[in-house]
């Protein structure tokens, strides 16, 4: 028993140290690309020069299990980078193409670092707009109906991929979005993307609350279907 208490004491004493080292990793290896304090870009210039997604409200946006995994083995989410304008050129036939060589490989963390960093990021909750707990109510939609909404009715497919190599390229892939982001955050973001990111080049289509829920059902169904 004594031994257990001793190891518990050591554990408790070391815990803040791990947190501190998460903070150190963030400051030394992440802050040059990610905004950890806010606010989001408020001019086009700031939007164009943003080097990575804002993380100052990571705790309300991301799922920690996904983040910890991804940081150890990052893969591309935005086919044309943060701001496509920096990674696109016009080919000889007048067709714009992505300059893949200009996209950066994401730094990779060790399991211990990923855990520590995720923990520090999850404490960041300075959300620019309210995210309501329980806003998403799980439900179902067929993939066929979901795709009809995403493409024909609302035109979202123009900018987002619904499976690897199918769909638009200027926005993040959506077939992994519910693995990455919290559903309650998605409700708030789809209601008003500019409330989180005032200059972002995703339109506000004034979606009905019912349709927002359906889109999230659809993303969840897609994530089941398309295991990359």
């Amino acid at each position, binding site marked *: 028993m004594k031994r257990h208490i001793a190891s518990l004491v050591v554990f408790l004493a070391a815990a803040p140290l791990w947190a501190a080292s998460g903070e150190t990793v963030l400051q030394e290896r992440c802050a040059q690309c990610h905004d950890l304090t806010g606010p989001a870009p408020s001019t*086009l210039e700031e939007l164009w020069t943003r080097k990575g997604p804002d993380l100052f409200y990571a705790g309300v946006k991301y799922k920690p299990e996904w983040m910890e995994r991804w940081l150890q083995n990052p893969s591309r989410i935005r086919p044309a980078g943060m701001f496509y*304008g920096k990674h*696109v050129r016009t080919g000889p036939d007048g067709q714009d193409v992505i300059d893949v060589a200009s996209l950066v490989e994401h730094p990779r963390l060790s399991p211990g670092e990923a855990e520590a960093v995720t923990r520090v990021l999850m404490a960041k909750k300075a959300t620019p707009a309210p995210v309501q707990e329980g806003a998403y109510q799980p439900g179902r939609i067929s993939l066929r109906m979901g795709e009809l909404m995403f493409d024909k009715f609302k035109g979202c*497919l123009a900018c987002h991929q619904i499976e690897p190599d199918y*769909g638009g*390229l200027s926005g993040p892939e959506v077939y992994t979005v519910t693995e990455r982001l919290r559903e309650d955050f998605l409700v708030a973001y789809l209601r008003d993307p500019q409330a989180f990111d005032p200059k972002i080049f995703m339109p*506000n*289509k004034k979606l009905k609350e019912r349709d927002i829920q359906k889109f999230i059902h659809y993303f969840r169904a897609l994530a089941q279907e398309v295991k990359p």
Partner: protein
Amino acid sequence: MNAAQRLLAAATLAWLAAPAPAQPSGEDLYRTYCAQCHGLQGNGKGINVRDMSVQPRDHTDSKYMAGRTDDELRTAVVEGGQALSKSVLMPPWGSVLEPQEVDALVAYMRELCDCQHGRP
């Protein structure tokens, strides 16, 4: 004038003289919000087009663009394609752009087509 009044006057002058935050140009707005579909050159060949069922308008097509009034262009940008019985793939930008920004975009599209309404 005493010192405080002078200070106040100086502060007021400085405030009046401070440049208003620069309004982005039509070209900068286009390259941010429109080029993803309409292309960096405005020719309708942006990175998103491959899987789009309706292709974005070529804004350098002076014949087509001359057939549109500035108000129609403004409506397309603010309310989206559906407001002109066109495709939903042309999004509404009314809640993202200020009215002066929409005007700047219309002026930039007129530069791209090198045309005015009725004058290709």
